């Protein structure tokens, strides 16, 4: 058993537990609405909740700002983080690794799948130009990168993966409304499982700013990369997973 390490939010004094919350309730403004807001804040563990702002938004909704101490403790020892469980390598090390281990170029297929057209993120990972001062995967001599761009349909993606004999398929999902990113990711995972014999499908890597990095298994992919990912992290992971 690891030792519990407890902390609380910090307003201006250690342990005061202070948080700020805002939300809208579909209730006309007034005392009743403020009471409802306080009730919700209490359900969230804020006690006492100060409803410091309430404003009618049209006739049927009210917007609230709430301050107060939350009673929950944060147990740092129980925090589950998708910690990097592979070493961070330089491009040179990755290249050497692939050359030695794979004895051929690694084929990486990238795309912004479904109706999503936000290519900036996947381009940041793939294009030579890279991101945050790190060169993208195209810069790695031992990788062959095929970037399919935006709004690639799932069947089209599978077809290209087979044609290119992809080792890894990298998909990006930025639009999250109605959980579009999760739905599309699940679709991709299902399509690849179907198209390949068990255990033979390429590595599936998904990225985007609003993913929970620890949900890979649940979505049926091998790895998730979130907000602020750098190309070096992805390259290191690919070398670790495929070589």
């Amino acid at each position: 058993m690891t030792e519990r390490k407890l902390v609380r939010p910090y307003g201006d004094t250690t342990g005061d537990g202070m948080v700020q919350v805002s939300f809208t309730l579909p209730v006309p403004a007034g005392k009743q609405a403020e009471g409802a807001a306080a009730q919700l804040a209490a359900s969230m563990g804020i006690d006492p909740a100060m409803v410091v702002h309430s404003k009618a938004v049209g006739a049927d909704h009210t917007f609230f700002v709430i301050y107060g101490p939350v009673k929950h403790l944060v147990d740092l020892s129980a925090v589950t983080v998708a910690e990097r469980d592979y070493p961070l390598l330089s491009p040179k090390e990755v290249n050497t690794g692939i050359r030695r281990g794979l004895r051929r170029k690694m084929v990486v297929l990238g795309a912004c799948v479904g109706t999503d057209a936000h290519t900036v993120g996947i381009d940041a990972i793939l294009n030579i130009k890279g991101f945050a001062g790190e060169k993208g995967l195209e810069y790695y001599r031992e990788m062959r990168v095929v970037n399919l761009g935006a709004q690639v349909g799932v069947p089209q993606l599978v077809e290209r993966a087979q044609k290119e004999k992809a080792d890894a398929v990298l998909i990006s999902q930025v639009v999250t409304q109605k959980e579009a990113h999760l739905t599309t990711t699940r679709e991709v995972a299902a399509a690849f499982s179907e198209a390949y014999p068990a255990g033979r499908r390429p590595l599936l890597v998904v990225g985007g700013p609003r993913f929970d990095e620890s949900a890979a298994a649940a979505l049926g992919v091998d790895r998730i990369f979130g907000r602020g990912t750098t190309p070096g992290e992805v390259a290191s992971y690919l070398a670790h997973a495929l070589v």
Partner: protein
Amino acid sequence: MRRARTLARRAGRPIVDLATSHTTVSLERATIRLAGLEGADGERVPWVNRLVDAVRQEVGLEHGVALPVWDALVRGQAPDLLTLAQKAATGGGGFRIPAGRDLVRARSAAKKAVGQGIRRIDNSRRQRERLIRRHGDAPRRPWIYLIVATGDIYEDIPQACAAARAGADVIAVIRSTGQSLLDYVPEGATREGYAGTYATGENFRLMRAALDEVSRELGRYVRLTNYASGLCMPEIAALAGMERLDMMLNDSMYGILFRDINPVRTFVDQRFSRQIHARAGIVINTGEDNYLTTADAVEAAHTVTVSQLLNEFFAKEAGLPEELMGLGHAFEIDPAVPQSFRLELAHALLARTLFPAAPLKWMPPTRHMTGDVFRGYLLNGFFNLAGALTGQGILLVGMMTEAVVTPWLSDRDLALDNVRYVLDACEGLTEDFNPPPDGFIANRAQQVLGEAVELLERIVDEGLLAAIGDGTFAGMRRPENAGRGLDGVVKRADGYVNPAIEALEVVAP
């Protein structure tokens, strides 16, 4: 300035020739829509698609759909367009390209039928003018422009009404991801868009009706905006004209650059849709802001100017007066850049000076918005200030949650409070804002204009299509002979007939 305009004209001219010598499936479908054909079959394929596809298969589109379709109707192949489309869908169109008297008759029948659509557009325009007279117009410039994007028209409507009541002068319904790549316009009221709601004739109608009611309630005419963009640009323009939309996103290159739509297809569709907008009195909104979401807003500032000049040329050529040219630009400089606000002012003033009568569309920060919503709210305040100081025409209201979610009800309300504070508190501040003629702001504007002229010279030299193929704009390479929708482009034959174009054509500038 004069030199820049001359160059833009020279760069644009060959494109106009291209546009007038081609047609597209969507342009032809739009023509049929003007004649009143609506609805879709059991597979939800619109009848206009069925009909135009059948014509194309049987006799090709080189002569346009009008002649074969009305020839068939005149010949009594079917009592009306719908029946004809139904028959055609099962292979029984029996189309031909009429000649001689048949041609004359078909042509005049087509003209009459399509003329009804043109009249609907004219009526809508008059109705708008009437309603503005009756209810009153937006209280001041800039117009306050708010986005609705739930994906469900029935959630959009109450949100749009709430936004209007809270002070919006213009409501834009954002389209679902993916619609721009559909080669048909969905039918009916829709509830299943992602991060936006499908643009359909019925959705237009529903929203416009709701806003008419709110306009009455508020005593000011609330405008409605959508997107004439993507593969169905002409059809959507036609629907917008008939359903009395008031503004339409309509850029000459957006589809090429950001949706990988074939350049020729885009330019052909664009010209037709702008002719409709001109007729309908619809303000177009161009999309220069988009460049700055991928390119650096300082380095690429001159590409915005170049694109504005091109958009202006194409708009004029299609008959749009300056008052209907909502040329776009944006507040997208990295806030970490020293003097970023002054640079923004310089760029915004340059546009204001170049296009004095155009209702410029001022777009909020998006790229450098982060999950820090407090910072985002502040940044939007300075965006609003820049808009007020430089006399922008249309202010697209920025959301503090830009980097997080499509706007919430409360985001819009907070954003409107922000706009209102800035516009009210700074009313008249332009009196005190007097950048010296040799100062930082003037010098920066001069520099951007200089770079724009240089770039235009290069474009004139190599040709606009080649420049687009090279990655000149937004760093995207889009070759002339690639991209989506290319197979929907058809070179016009000599005997090409399109009664819509005939009605819409105005004397070129």
